[in-house]
């Protein structure tokens, strides 16, 4: 039967109508694929110095399509690897934010009453705190491992998720179908997993997409300052910092990584907006 269309199927078709979101999705997929397999396909390697090509501008013939840096490392490969690291950290941090925020918000929203007010009061207090500066403090105090970085960056994002999920949970919990399910004899776990979670999923997916660019920006910010990803690994933030330092001599060192970063952030934001419109029929115009 072709006319059976679940809300998910409808959402997908609505997303496909959103041309900016589709284009973003295509660009993002291409960038992710390039970041994952690109360095492997390239004749150059990120750590190998090309002594004949130090600080060379972009040139198709030499094989260094985006030029080389001061040490003769191929910038295309370095940018792709930087993108991979930035994406990895951002996605991992977004997952940390989402899991923490969703659990916190859902528990607070579904419990209500005093538990809710205590939990959300905590979020309010943390919201007033300058999380980014705490991240700087943490990276000062502890070893700068990628795991700490992920945890720190993830901590900057979960508060908003918790608030959104809580209000969504409260709105859902007051809908009659939740009550109807209880009246049908469903157990609390059944209510949560059969009714609450599937209806929250749209919000959470949308937020994940909007969180990733935020996480990319925070990671790049820290790496730009030198307290994020540590050498020899480098993320887009490190590359931009290097490029900014060599601005007058080798501007291509800045332009490539910066363009990648901006493109990533733009595409994730457009995709997130598209998802939000697609998953929430009320927002459709």
């Amino acid at each position, binding site marked *: 039967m072709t006319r059976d269309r679940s809300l998910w199927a409808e959402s997908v078709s609505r997303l496909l109508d959103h041309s900016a979101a589709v284009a973003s999705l295509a660009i993002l997929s291409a960038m992710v694929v390039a970041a994952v397999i690109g360095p492997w396909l390239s004749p150059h390697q990120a750590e190998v110095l090309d002594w004949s090509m130090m600080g060379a501008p972009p040139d198709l013939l030499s094989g260094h399509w985006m030029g080389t840096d001061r040490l003769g490392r191929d910038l295309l490969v370095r940018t792709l690897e930087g993108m991979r690291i930035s994406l990895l950290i951002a996605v991992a941090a977004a997952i940390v934010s989402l899991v923490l925020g969703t659990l916190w918000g859902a528990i607070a929203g579904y419990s209500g009453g005093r538990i809710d007010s205590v939990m959300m009061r905590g979020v309010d207090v943390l919201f007033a705190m300058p999380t980014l500066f705490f991240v700087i403090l943490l990276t000062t105090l502890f070893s700068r491992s990628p795991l700490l970085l992920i945890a720190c960056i993830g901590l900057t994002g979960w508060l908003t998720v918790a608030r959104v999920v809580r209000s969504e949970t409260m709105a859902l919990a007051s809908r009659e179908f939740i009550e109807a399910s209880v009246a049908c*004899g469903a157990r609390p776990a059944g209510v949560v997993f059969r009714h609450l979670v599937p209806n929250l999923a749209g919000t959470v997916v949308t937020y994940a997409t909007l969180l990733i660019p935020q996480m990319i920006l925070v990671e790049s910010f820290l790496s730009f300052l030198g307290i994020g990803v540590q050498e020899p690994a480098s993320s887009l933030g490190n590359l931009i910092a290097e490029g900014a330092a060599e601005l007058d001599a080798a501007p291509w060192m800045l332009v490539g990584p910066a363009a990648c970063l901006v493109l990533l952030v733009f595409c994730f934001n457009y995709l997130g907006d598209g998802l939000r419109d697609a998953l929430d029929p009320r927002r459709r115009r």
Partner: protein
Amino acid sequence: MSALLQALDLEVSFPLGQGWTRRSVLRALRGVSLSLGRGEAVGIVGESGCGKSTLARVLLGLIKPDSGQVLLEGRAVAHHDRDALLELRRRVQMVFQDPRGSLNPRLTILESIAEPLRCLRPEFSASERRMLIMHTLEQVGLDRGLASRYPHELSGGQCQRAGIARAIVAKPDCLVCDEPVSALDLSIQGQIVNLLADLRREIGVGVLFISHNLSVVRHLCDRVLVMHLGQVVEEGNVVQVFTAPRHPYTQLLLSSELVAEPGRPLPALPDGEPASPLSPPAGCSFVGRCPVVMEACRHEPPPVTRDPDGHATRCYRWTDSTSSIHSPAIPLSTDARRPR
């Protein structure tokens, strides 16, 4: 034999306000008692905010009463005992007000109707379940093809039929219907009410019908309870209450019903603010708008006078004028007579 479903002296209040200081309390039910026999249809009428919906939810065990009891065939239901609640819900099911909102938008109609079977009648296999659901869909007048559809693809009336199917699929003895037609178009309302009347005749299910639509109640029910500000103010069979209303509030309700008749003037209604459930008056809850208010009404809540035929009224006027003819007042609840 005891009634199928009974409520004794239910008290429910909700704390209001945010944060740590929850001072004010909304008293939704103030000593409500009722009983529903097998296959009986009882209507509950009253203005919005009088506690009708709260009463429905307490009867299903969705809200725990502060005091009072729900009795199933004479046995009190323990609200903290999961098995007791399951038994209650196997016997009593609910039809909700918002047809679309009471169906999970991400489940098909089939999946929604299957839920009570899975939870309440685990003895059925998947194929038996499917057969039962298909049969039930026919009973409520829904095309079998709609089973695989989602709520947003159905009309409001179809959604409400699906909601009724979900309520009767596990073969309960009684349906609690919370304003089941008020969210529907006028033309659809009649169909749903007729469906409920048919179901009552065909499968003998009892109906507790909550509504503010008096004519629907008159059409469907045997007995009616009139609620005002969390109390039952009048109770009796439909003919008694609708032809000879005793409580001034019932009289007001009946006279404010608009009748489509050209040339008929709009009913003249008394002024005055309805009392707030946040701070119910010390005496009778209706003093603010009562046209025949007396001094006694302002201080002590009136007692309930019950005729031998079951017509009961909570009003001083009625005690005064009939005490010589009728039996002495039997309170519906002792608690309600205590001055607050």
